[in-house]
C-alpha cells in the first residue's frame, strides 16, 4: 500500500530564513505533486515532478525528486509571510486510474 510521509508536520520560521520540507513515499510512484492550501481553501497545485532528478522552481519555492530514494524536497528560500500555508505532497500512478495519495501536510508559519 502506498504511503506518504512528510516532515516536519509543523514549521515555524522567521522571514528571510531558508528551510526544507521532506516527503517520503513507500512504493514506486510515477508522479509527485506539491500542493499549497490556505485555511478553508482549495488545493493549489505548485509542482508536478515526473522523473528522477526533476527540479522545478517558482519564486521562493523549489521542488526536487529522487525516485531511487523515494524522496522529494520542497525548499523555501528567504521565506516571506505570504508563504504561510499548509503544504501537501502527494503521489499517484501514471499507468492506471489511480487515486492520489496525500501526505499529512506541513503547516508552515512564517513569522515577520
Amino acid at each position, binding site marked *: 500500500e502506498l504511503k506518504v510521509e512528510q516532515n516536519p508536520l509543523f514549521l515555524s520560521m522567521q522571514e528571510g530564513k531558508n528551510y526544507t520540507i521532506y516527503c517520503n513515499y513507500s512504493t514506486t510512484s510515477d508522479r509527485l505533486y506539491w500542493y499549497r492550501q490556505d485555511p478553508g481553501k482549495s488545493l493549489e497545485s505548485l509542482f508536478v515532478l515526473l522523473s528522477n532528478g526533476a527540479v522545478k522552481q517558482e519564486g521562493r519555492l523549489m521542488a526536487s525528486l529522487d525516485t531511487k530514494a523515494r524522496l522529494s524536497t520542497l525548499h523555501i528560500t528567504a521565506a516571506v509571510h505570504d508563504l504561510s500555508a499548509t503544504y501537501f505532497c502527494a503521489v499517484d500512478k501514471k499507468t*492506471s486510474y489511480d*487515486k*492520489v495519495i*496525500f501526505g499529512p501536510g506541513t503547516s508552515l508559519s512564517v513569522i515577520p
Partner: protein
Amino acid sequence: AAGVIQSPRHLIKEKRETATLKCYPIPRHDTVYWYQQGPGQDPQFLISFYEKMQSDKGSIPDRFSAQQFSDYHSELNMSSLELGDSALYFCASSLGGQGAYEQYFGPGTRLTVT
C-alpha cells in the same frame, strides 16, 4: 482555461438529512475522483469513475453513493448525514484514457452538518 466546477460551494444540512454534491470536470476529461478532507486532515480518496463506470473505491461510507453521467459530470449523494461528515469535499478530473492521468482539483464544497 476551464477548470473543474463544483456546486454548491457551501452547504449546511442537519443530521439525518441528505445532500447531493455535483462536479463538472474539465471539458474532455473522462475520469472523476472524489476526496473528503476533514478539519486539519489531508484529503482522503472516496471513489472514482472512468467512462461512467466506477474505477476505484476508497474509504467511502455505505451511506454515500456516487455516479458519473453521460456528460461526464458526477454527483456524490450523501444520506443519513452525521456530524462527522462535516468536511471539505473535493472533486478532481483527469483525461484517463489518454495516458495523461494528472488530476486537476476543483474548489471544493464545504459541507457543514449541524
